[in-house]
């Protein structure tokens, strides 16, 4: 059953689900169980990534019923890459969370609420992880809908966990937007089934044609996914939700959750007929997001709010390059995925580091953070490294991604796109510098407060930032994995 030779396709989904139930069953905050299952999930995901790299596409017919009757799981290079990305970011966030919840305990009567938060954090987070893996690996559109529901509901629960009024409001808005997106997706799935008589994702994508029912179905599915991915102008719910959540949750939401719906969008839109017809649409919205998000990020006063608006801008990059997918040399897909992974690592590291500042200083006002590097040198370094990758400076994953964007755009003669990417990088540099200048400022703190945060919080953020850097140096491995088709 579990041997290196059999397919590990099912385990990255089953293990976290099992862990979530066991965490929920535990009477007290299940930190150990949670961490154990996070490590197991991460391990299973990495094994799957290695299997796909070594042996090619993996698939598993659930219940041994083949599609279209049954559901099958399928891992090609892109899916395995996303699962691996989730494993890396997820592991770092889990280790961070262990230290985070430990550090927040102060021994007074507010600890009961903090313990209650931790008690629900672990099962919700593991369920979310399992659902994301399920989303990446599923080969069936209706099953994807259920995974989307699981992802959305657990994200809403995690967002509301902090209990602050703004985050409760944000979580409610997130829930409503998400439900609307799901409904739209489901209606589209209904149309697909009616037209194609199957729910198998690959068969539906293969049958995409410019006939009215298919266009309608695709429009509904795409609108739902865009709403859930928070692409401009559907972004309004994202910044408050991401910024007001508990810090590990912010990293999860920005680093992982939006990638799930983006990945699905990519699955539907990678076909060339579609790109030729309306490929400019996601690109235009993406361009809007890059510029609008960057300006908003620059004008924020709070660090987590800045990082959250930066996510709005970076989502733009995930969509702006869709016309490039029609590249004959096939470099469009790698560029997009490279961007997605390095954003996940860099943004995760930045949110984790910002959360460490917040916990240590008791606030995250950018202008008052000067001097924080004295007490939190590792976190400050992690934040700066994450910022470097976001700007796209070498040697980082962000640099490789943007290099691929620009070169592919130029070879295709899409000068405006290359220009937009460069302009966006300038804007990113502006807001990242604003934050980094405060954090690394040589000013001294008047009094040096006691270190209040666990070392694991600092080092996990740094590890994630270093992964973003590593992506810039070892580009062959992810690209080889992505090449498995």
């Amino acid at each position, binding site marked *: 059953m579990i041997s290196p030779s059999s397919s590990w396709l099912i385990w990255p989904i089953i293990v976290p689900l099992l862990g979530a139930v066991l965490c929920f069953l535990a009477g007290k905050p299940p930190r150990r169980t949670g961490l154990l299952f996070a490590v197991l999930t991460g391990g299973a995901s990495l094994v799957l990534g290695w299997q796909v790299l070594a042996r090619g596409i993996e698939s598993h017919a659930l219940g041994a019923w083949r599609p279209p009757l049954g559901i099958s799981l399928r891992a090609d290079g892109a899916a395995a890459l996303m699962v691996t990305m989730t494993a890396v970011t997820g592991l770092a966030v889990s280790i961070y969370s262990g230290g985070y919840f430990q550090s*927040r305990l102060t021994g007074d009567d*507010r600890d009961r*609420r*903090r313990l209650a938060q931790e008690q629900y954090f672990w099962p919700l987070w593991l369920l979310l992880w399992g659902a994301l893996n399920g989303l990446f690996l599923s080969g069936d559109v209706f099953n994807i809908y259920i995974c989307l529901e699981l992802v959305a509901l657990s994200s809403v629960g995690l967002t509301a966990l*902090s*209990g*602050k*009024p703004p*985050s*409760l409001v944000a979580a409610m808005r997130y829930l409503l937007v998400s439900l609307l997106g799901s409904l739209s997706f489901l209606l589209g799935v209904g149309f697909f089934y009616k037209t194609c008589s199957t729910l198998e994702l690959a068969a539906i994508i293969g049958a995409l044609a410019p006939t009215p029912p298919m266009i309608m179905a695709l429009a509904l599915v795409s609108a739902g996914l865009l709403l859930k991915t928070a692409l401009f102008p559907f972004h309004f719910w994202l910044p408050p939700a991401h910024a007001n959540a508990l810090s590990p949750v912010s990293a999860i939401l920005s680093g992982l959750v939006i990638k799930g719906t983006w990945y699905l969008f990519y699955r539907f839109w990678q076909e060339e007929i579609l790109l030729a017809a309306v490929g400019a649409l996601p690109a235009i919205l993406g361009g809007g997001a890059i510029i609008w998000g960057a300006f908003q990020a620059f004008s924020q006063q709070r660090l987590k709010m800045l990082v959250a608006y930066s996510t709005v801008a970076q989502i733009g990059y995930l969509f702006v390059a869709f016309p490039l997918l029609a590249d004959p040399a096939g470099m469009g897909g790698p560029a997009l995925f490279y961007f997605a992974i390095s954003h996940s690592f860099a943004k995760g590291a930045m949110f984790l580091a910002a959360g460490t500042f*917040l*916990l240590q200083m*008791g*606030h995250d006002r950018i202008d008052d953070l000067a001097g924080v590097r004295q007490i939190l040198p590792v976190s400050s370094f992690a934040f700066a490294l994450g910022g470097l990758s976001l700007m796209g400076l070498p040697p980082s994953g962000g640099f490789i991604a943007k290099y691929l964007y620009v070169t592919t755009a130029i070879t295709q003669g899409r000068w405006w796109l290359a220009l937009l990417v460069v302009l966006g990088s300038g804007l990113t540099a502006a807001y990242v510098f604003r934050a980094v200048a405060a954090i690394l400022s040589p000013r001294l703190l008047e009094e040096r407060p006691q270190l209040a945060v666990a070392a694991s919080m600092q080092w996990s953020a740094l590890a994630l930032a270093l992964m973003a850097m590593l992506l810039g140096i070892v580009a062959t491995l992810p690209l080889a994995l992505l090449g498995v088709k």
Partner: protein
Amino acid sequence: MTAVNAFDILLCLTLIWLAWQVLASRDPFRAVVLFISFGMLMALGWVRLQAPDLALAEAAIGSGLTGALFLSALRKVTGTKKDERRLDRDEEAQ
């Protein structure tokens, strides 16, 4: 045949009207009660569409349990006095 058709049309119109009334209602209690009746009629609609499984689920969950949940939520919201509705702020933002 025509009687059946007339019934279906009437059912559809009533459903749309009820849905509108639920949305337009200013009084939440009234909206909840209308929502429950909407669920019941919707279950009837599923029966007409020959989906008895759905009809059962709609009547039990869509109308009964959801209605009970709404009513209980409504009682909690209206039963909280203004000064009692104190949401605790998170310690991080001190």
